[in-house]
């Protein structure tokens, strides 16, 4: 028996966190399935996922209880987004070995992609049961709990992640977001600050730090952080939109308009930026009601565009109603508020009751 080669590949890229499991090479001549299996790994590494799937399938044909081939085929199928097929492969691995923590981990990731958050959380729990030191399983389970709205549970998971790996910037960022959801803004700001300290190129965390400060009414601080995020990631339209909103809150409408315009340049189909820029034009215009300034028309055009991009954008209707009100188009205003109310904007319902006959 030849030496056992163990590959543990953690593709650290955030989007495609893929892992390639153990490859065991038995005696080459004797074991054709293992040989084919190794070819599959080469293909996988060359990102030839479709080919790799076929190759692993051949190995499985030769050896139907070849757990590692199932596992790697699952990984390949995950890469090409064949999630159902990947799941059945993971299930096979687990059937062959209940304690295959990496299969539980992979299964959890796949379930997450399918939006089956509850099942995903259960799978991570299994992965943790068989590998209690796997900080990533805690980290991802934290993310799943976060998305399920279980912020207290998520917090415990991120705490555990950091306990196991105290220099993990990503976990600080995510825990910061959890604190933000729990309305513990000060703690959120501390965690985000820690994340950017550990990873100075961490644009997302800078953006989040900015948003936490903005929520904490530190608009100046927020603008500074957004600016760093944008510098680190010049196409970061989300941070630009956020900086525009912070300027808006500071009543710097001209500055806000500039940022929203930049945001639209980066992402021309971004309805939020049109909505927000429309609002900034409105604010710019309505300082003196006695004068109809061209900014009213600009506001209207932007909100029209936001609605065109997303016809079920309730807030854009609500805001456009306000512009119509300023333009003394009461019927158009009421029509917009009615539409906003239909789309679930509660305030619009109140306004209709009081101001629309």
């Amino acid at each position, binding site marked *: 028996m030849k030496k056992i080669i163990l590959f543990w590949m953690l593709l650290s890229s*955030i989007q495609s966190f893929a892992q390639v499991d153990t490859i065991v090479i038995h005696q080459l001549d004797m074991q054709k399935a293992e040989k084919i299996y190794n070819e599959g790994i080469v293909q996988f590494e060359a990102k030839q996922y479709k080919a790799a799937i076929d190759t692993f399938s051949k190995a499985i044909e030769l050896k139907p209880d070849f757990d590692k081939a199932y596992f790697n085929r699952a990984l390949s199928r995950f890469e090409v987004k064949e999630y159902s097929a990947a799941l059945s492969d993971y299930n096979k691995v687990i059937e062959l070995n209940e304690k295959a923590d990496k299969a539980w981990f992979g299964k959890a990731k796949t379930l997450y992609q399918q939006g089956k958050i509850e099942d995903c959380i259960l799978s991570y729990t299994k992965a943790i049961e068989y590998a209690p030191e796997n900080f990533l399983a805690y980290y991802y389970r934290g993310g799943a709990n976060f998305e399920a709205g279980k912020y207290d549970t998520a917090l415990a998971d991120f705490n555990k992640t950091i306990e196991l790996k105290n220099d993990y910037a990503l976990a600080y*960022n995510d825990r910061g977001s959890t604190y933000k959801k729990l309305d513990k803004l000060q703690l959120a700001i501390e965690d985000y600050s820690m994340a950017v300290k550990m990873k100075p190129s961490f644009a997302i965390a800078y953006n989040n730090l900015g*948003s936490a400060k903005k929520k904490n009414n530190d608009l100046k601080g927020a603008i500074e952080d957004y600016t760093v995020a944008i510098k680190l990631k010049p196409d970061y339209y989300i941070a630009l939109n*956020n900086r525009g909103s912070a300027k808006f809150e500071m009543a710097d409408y001209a500055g806000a308009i500039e940022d929203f315009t930049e945001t639209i340049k980066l992402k021309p189909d971004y309805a*939020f930026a049109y909505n927000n820029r429309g*609002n900034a034009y*409105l604010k710019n215009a309505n300082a003196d009601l006695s004068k109809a300034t061209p900014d009213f028309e600009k506001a209207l055009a932007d909100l029209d565009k936001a609605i065109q991009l997303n016809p079920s954008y309730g807030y854009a209707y609500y*805001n456009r109603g306000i512009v119509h009100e300023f333009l003394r188009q009461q019927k158009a205003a009421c029509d917009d508020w009615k539409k906003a109310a239909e789309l679930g904007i509660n305030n619009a319902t109140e*306004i209709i009751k009081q101001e629309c006959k």
Partner: protein
Amino acid sequence: MKNIIILLTVLLCGGFLRAQNVEFEKKNFTGKTDSLKIAKKNISQGDKLFEMGPYKYMQALESYSKANSFNPNNALLNYKMGRCYIISIQKEKAITHFEKALQLNPSVEFDLLYYAGNACQLNYQFEKAIDYFTQYQQQLGPKRLLDEKPRIENRIAECKRAKELMKKPLRLFIDNIGSQVNSVYPDYSPIINADESVMFFTSRRSNTTGGGIDKNDNGYYEDIYITNNTNNQWTAPVNPGKTLNSKVHDATVGISPDGQKLLIYKGENGGDIYECKLEGNEWTKPKQMSKSINTEYHECSASYSPDGKTLYFVSNKPGGFGKHDIYYVKKNAKGKWGQAINLGGSINTPFEEQSIFAHPDGKTIYFSSEGHNGMGGLDIYKSVSDNDKWSDPENIGYPINTPDNDVFFSVSASGKHAYYSSIRAEGYGEKDIYMITFLGNPKEIINNTEDNLLASTLQSQSEVVIEPSIQLKTNPVTILKGSIFDIETKLPLKASIQLSDNVKNEVIAEFESNSASGKYLVSLPSGKNYGLAIKSEGYLFLSENFDIPSNALYQEVIKDFGMSKIKVGVKVVLKNIFFDFDKASLRAESYSELSVLINLLNDNPLMKIEISGHTDNVGSAAYNQKLSESRAKAVVDYLISKNIVKSRLTFAGYGFSQAFTTNDTPEGRQMNRRTEFKITEK
């Protein structure tokens, strides 16, 4: 050459330019003796007019201007011109002249700095105004300072307050109500009825009664004009003629919410309030109001409460808080006005209170005052009564209030519109009437943002937007209006509308429909269970119930009433008869209506009636028959207890056999559950 040297010296020495004061003296105008003579004559003409008081200032200004074009560099002349301009339409010119006077000779008059400050204040230059007022204060001697200090401090406080109020302008639009109403002459003091269908205003246009000119200010005498709102257009104003207008000043003061009674001001007896009523299409002769209102002093503004039982008015009679104060009188049971009562120290101040307007909501008053933390001159304030206690007056804000006098403000019942007069660039000349449209509540604009909250997934997450809460408007009213007519001939009827509070069992107010149009209008503040009894001589009364919860918003309800002559067989539904649920016990809320029925029976001693009970179809026929019968009997028993002879009354229970309308809807079932009476003999 000499001039250049002087100029250079001034520039070098002072660093700023001070023009030289040039007196109207021969030595300054060599070779221009004749022109100088004319200029001096103009000045003395102007001075004569100036001394006669502000109403002559515009004439004085004409003469002064001539002299000023001959010699623009006289400090005293510039000062006087500033004084004239400060009360004119062109207030900005006052600053020019006062500042010119300051350059020429700062000490030409001791109060020059005060007026310069005041001119700046009126022109919204508050920083500069404060600066002038402060300089003025500093240069006063100790004795004068003692007298002047309160006035200066008030002006400075006004400037500061103005800056504050202007930071939060009101959400409104101001529209000229149009050239069909407004003229090149002063049009002002608009008063509207509750539903904004009629407006009375004062105008000094050329076709006023008699066409006379008031020598005091060279303007035509005031007359009252009426305009109607049809399809959102004000009709050409009509001069109601000699009943309301005389050859001298006749001005609008107040109007009842239904537009059937008018209060006007006449200058006689030191200034008094008169009342006239619309009888059909004709106004009755103005009648001087009771002595509890009018005195030998100046009574100049008045307004009815919506129930017509209280009259607010303004008087400068002694015994108040100083200058004009607001008073009220209440009507007693006999319909006479009682003692005048001062509205109290939270409303009245040692300074002027003017132009009172009581809103149809029955709780809010608007008035002008120079005594409460305003932005200059008279400002308009609002106060709301709660259990007879008036809230602290609230400045209604900029741009309705200005640094100048703001008076005559009337608000529609809906609270959406107000009317006032103003001099604005878009006007048709002098004061014009403007309609203010209040925008709804301020609405927070909502931005949307998102973040990449989780580093493990780049899915961005929208920030949860907390929607701002919306404040409910206060004191809403329901306007009930329509016409009353004979059900057979369809001709309009003059009828009285008696409004009762069913819970308190008391009559709140009585109104009349117009005999020519049959039209009526009643203002019903939210939060009461109202019973209405509509009565007209020779007709069977009608009843209507309006239960308006306190959170009901403004609404206009149009309801026409066709009345039947009293004759055998006629039926009336008694809409204000209430029973306990599923029982035959009469509730106390029914007594107001029953007293109307008792009066009818007492007035018609031969009349016999049947009281009948009716139910909806919920439950068995037998059960409902029994319930309706015992309810009818309960009414009859009550009437007997009030000394109606038993033999005149019969009762019957019809269950749901005589359904009024469908039983398939809740509204239908409610209409079917009713108590009726029928005349069986007359």
